[in-house]
């Protein structure tokens, strides 16, 4: 847990020498507590004080980076159990597992397909984050050649899976610059895996299914060998064991500052599932409940799209709904006589309509009111999308853009029609369909007709 200024102050020299640039040690401690300055500004702190503060002030769950600067996934550094307490910060990396026993053409085509996959939602491009390559053949040569095959198609982050340090070393030799995650150090091979992790400066997964005490013991040894960038696999594979263990691990890290287990987690939903749908379901649970890296065994766009959507939803900051600027938005190059519609500035609302209008190919103007990021009905109920506001936005934004006086309002707020006719004298207020999906057909029938 983060330390308070007073707690930090105890470790400082208490001489108020001002060399740090602050008038007193306490003032400096306060700045440290709010993470505005670095401890290194104080030249006089003792080694013990420094060590104590570094351990105590480090984040409860370490931030681990997989991949190189250009293509990376950062996981960990979470500070709450529940998203409403603050927010979840680093969404889990979703990677697809490839086995080195698969024929090269198969690997090439899957990797190309998945690396190129991306789906648009609320104006964002969502995609998978990388690949896990499994040394199923148990041969170093096949592992290396599979890594090369994957690398020929993508520079996305990798997880290298092998329990053989020889094969792992050979694999790392090919791709160490891209900083893959090494999976995994076990009670049998941890010393050699830790060596590789240090030599190639790559993060290391630690696998120990015996229990959390055993897992912490193994992490301690790996730490002592000099490895800090760690990802944990407590061996849970099914629904209930992963929920329990992942919850326990996060509690230990956040509530007990148990630093040996203060690392992001990795999960393998395909191993705990019997069907593709079940794998997707378990993956969904892992997204909501605390996984850091999720290794999938199957990929289909129809599975990826809902999972990526859930990840986006769960990792959205609850304090800040995604929203856009109020204003007038042209879609499909509208002219002065093109249809004019109005809606709210909640991103989801905007992109639902703009997507429909785009695919209908109708040129349209869309006036967006500032509703503080609320959807149509929510904003209407909260009094933030009323006739007065709509009229004001229309006058402000549309006056110099359209030559007609016809306004289409969302079907869900058809009740606003009368009031709007009063607020916008001379205008024809048209009630659109309740769902964005109906916009295309509606325009065809009602605007043209």
């Amino acid at each position, binding site marked *: 847990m983060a330390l308070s200024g007073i707690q930090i102050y105890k470790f400082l020299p208490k001489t108020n020498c001002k060399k740090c640039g602050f008038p007193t040690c306490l003032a400096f401690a306060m700045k440290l507590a709010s993470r505005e300055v670095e401890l290194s500004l104080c030249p006089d702190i003792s080694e013990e004080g420094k060590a104590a503060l570094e351990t105590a002030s480090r984040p409860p769950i370490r931030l681990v980076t997989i991949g190189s600067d250009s293509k990376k996934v950062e996981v960990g550094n979470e500070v709450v159990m529940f*998203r409403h307490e603050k927010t979840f910060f680093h969404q889990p990396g979703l990677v697809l597992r490839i086995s080195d026993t698969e024929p090269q053409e198969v690997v090439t085509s899957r990797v190309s397909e998945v690396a190129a996959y991306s789906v648009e939602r609320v104006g964002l491009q969502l995609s998978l984050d990388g690949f896990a390559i499994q040394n199923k053949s148990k041969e170093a040569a096949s592992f290396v050649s599979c890594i090369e095959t994957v690398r020929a198609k993508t520079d996305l982050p990798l997880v290298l899976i092998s329990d053989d340090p020889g094969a792992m070393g050979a694999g790392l030799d090919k791709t160490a610059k891209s900083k893959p995650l090494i999976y995994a150090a076990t009670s049998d091979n941890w010393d050699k895996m830790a060596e590789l992790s240090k030599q190639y400066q790559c993060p290391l997964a630690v696998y120990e299914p015996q229990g959390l005490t*055993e897992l*912490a013991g193994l992490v301690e040894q790996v730490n002592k060998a000099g490895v800090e960038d760690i990802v944990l696999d407590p061996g849970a594979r099914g629904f*209930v064991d992963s929920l329990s263990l992942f919850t*326990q691990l996060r509690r230990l890290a956040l509530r007990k500052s148990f630093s040996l287990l203060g690392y992001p987690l990795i999960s393998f939903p395909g191993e705990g599932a019997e069907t593709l*749908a079940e794998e997707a379901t378990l993956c969904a649970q892992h997204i909501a409940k605390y996984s850091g890296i999720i290794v999938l065994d199957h990929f289909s*766009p129809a599975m990826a799209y809902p999972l990526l959507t*859930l990840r986006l939803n769960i990792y959205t900051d609850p304090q800040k709904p995604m929203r856009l600027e109020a204003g007038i938005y042209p879609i499909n190059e509208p002219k002065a006589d093109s249809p004019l519609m109005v809606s709210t500035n909640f991103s989801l609302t905007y992109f639902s309509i703009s997507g429909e209008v785009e695919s209908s190919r109708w040129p349209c103007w869309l006036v967006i009111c500032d509703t503080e990021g609320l959807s149509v009905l929510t904003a209407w109920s909260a009094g933030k999308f009323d006739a007065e506001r709509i009229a004001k936005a229309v006058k402000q934004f549309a006056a110099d853009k359209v030559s007609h006086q016809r306004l289409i309002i969302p079907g869900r707020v058809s009740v606003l029609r009368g009031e709007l006719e009063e607020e916008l004298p001379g205008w024809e207020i048209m009630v659109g369909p309740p769902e964005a999906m109906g916009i295309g057909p509606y325009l065809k029938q009602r605007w043209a007709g």
Partner: protein
Amino acid sequence: MPVVEVPLEKWTGKIREVTLGGNGRKRVVVGGEATLPFLHFEGSIPNRPAIAIEVDDCQPAWSPHLTAAWGDVVADPVGWAKKAVEYGADIIALYLKSADPDEQNSSAAETTKVVDKVLSAVDVPLIIYGPGVAEKDNEVLVAAADAARGQRVALGNCEEKNHRTIAAACIASNHIAIARTPIDINLAKQLNILISEVGLSPNSILMDPTTGALGYGIEYSYSIMDRIRLAALSGDAMVAMPMICTVGEESWRQKEAIVTSGVPDSWGEHEQRSLLWEEITAVALINSGAGILVLRHPKTVELAKATIDKLMAR
């Protein structure tokens, strides 16, 4: 070796148990948890989340793919309810949509006949929903409550505006009220208090904190349910009712579930996508405390049941 002691929460509260059915009919008990969802290591979880399957009293205008999964029975609430039981429904959620003035505007006498028939056709408990139009809701629900006397059904929705009527009907015939509020813990608590003040026992209330589907507000539902559950376990008995989520209705309203063509290739194959849309909404919400899931597609039901089996296995 460092010794790991898992921190256990010392919850002072417990979720109420609400019993549907009984009296010759199968009994379904929901709630009763003394900890967060499926954390068996920390407290007892005596009852599994129950699955209710939606059955409408008039043919629904659903996505053809969803209607096809049920076949001809969608034209007949009795056959539909029976089939839903075969497909694993713990509860039938009967929607009296025909009473909607914009639909057939059927009378309370007519909808009550349907309630009667469904009650005698199946032996699982019922949830009965009105058409969602204030006046008509009261009419058909009050009549249904009377017809179902002794069967301990759940009646919805009981909202701020009609809570007196619905609560009174529940008191008169020993039924359960589904208290629905729009994603707000304070409103949820307030409505439970109002309903209790009318005289309905808190053990006869289910809470519907409003479901947002995946991609359409699920994060709000998820978090409000987390908050409600935490408050309940921390001792606030007026939010300690089991929660019900209308997952099917919300998921199958979304474009992702309905539309088969003219969407980006990246959305993938329609059948799989639409099923996962419902299933993923469901799994996220049982993880934040749902006690009853109201679902639509038989395959989602199967998958959700398998998931719940696994989450309940110790």
